């Protein structure tokens, strides 16, 4: 509060001097004229300071409105980004699981054809057993594929949460969030607190 008084030191002095003279019944025309001048000066100052403050307040309000709008946009884009990343991760994981299952399927069907099929034909003599075994392998692999996808998906989720340098955070980096374009000073003023 004292600092604010310091800001109006000259005005305070003028008022104090006039008050003292008034208490002593010692006011001349010159004193009165000086006091009127001081009062007029103070009034002009009040007018200009009020006007200037209102304009700067309006400037801050506009900056605030822009920030609110851009914040809403960021939230919207963030949710879109999250869903896109989710879809990309799923696609990536699905591709990985399919490759593994396809390789396993080729190996198992070749093995069945070369070793198991021959053994069934020689030892068991049951018609179509060969086909039943192949069907079981196919269903088993499909089931395994679902399990693998779930496993990889969880692994990727853990990677994202930990912020590792895996593929997914890299993908995330490709989708940059929008930048707030404010004048540097307003930005500093509003964000640095």
């Amino acid at each position: 509060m004292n600092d604010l008084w310091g800001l109006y030191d000259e005005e305070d002095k003028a008022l104090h001097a006039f008050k003292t003279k008034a208490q002593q019944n010692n006011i001349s025309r010159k004193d009165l004229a000086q006091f009127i001048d001081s009062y007029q000066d103070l009034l002009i100052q009040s007018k200009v300071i009020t006007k200037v403050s209102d304009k700067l307040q309006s400037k801050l309000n506009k900056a605030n409105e822009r920030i609110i709008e851009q914040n809403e946009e960021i939230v919207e884009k963030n949710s879109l980004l999250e869903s896109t990343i989710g879809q990309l991760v799923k696609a990536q994981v699905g591709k990985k699981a399919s490759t593994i299952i396809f390789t396993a399927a080729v190996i198992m069907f070749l093995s069945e054809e070369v070793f198991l099929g021959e053994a069934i034909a020689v030892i068991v003599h049951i018609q179509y057993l060969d086909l039943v075994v192949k069907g079981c392998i196919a269903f088993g692999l499909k089931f395994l594929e679902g399990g693998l996808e779930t496993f990889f998906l969880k692994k990727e989720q853990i990677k994202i949460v930990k912020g590792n340098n895996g593929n997914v955070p890299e993908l995330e980096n490709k989708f940059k969030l929008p930048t707030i374009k404010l004048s540097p000073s307003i930005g500093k003023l509003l964000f640095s607190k």
Partner: protein
Amino acid sequence: MEKVYIQATDYTPFVYFDPSTGLIELKGNSNPANSNSFYQKFIVELDEYVTHESGGLTANLSFHYFNTSSSKCIFNMLKKLHKMQEAGRCVTINWYYLEEDEEMREVGEDFSDILHMNFNFITIAA
């Protein structure tokens, strides 16, 4: 008389006053917790200059924002410059503002109107 050099911060402006060249520069945000004490050294040196020197002054003012108590300090400074001008000394005031910052231009116009002083309004590209 000493040179005044205060580096800018997020809340306070860059303040430069060189009595040997008569150059004043105030730039940035002026939002100090205590405007009076912040500008005190500069105002004291300016007073010295106004009283003891006979040369003119050039003031380059480039604010992005200033608070109410700073506007009082700026007004006080401009009043001193106005008195110098009335005494026949050469005073140039350059009021810089960002191109899109119409409010800051209007603020400069308000100061200029109320003090009956000519300001040079200069836009800065954003």
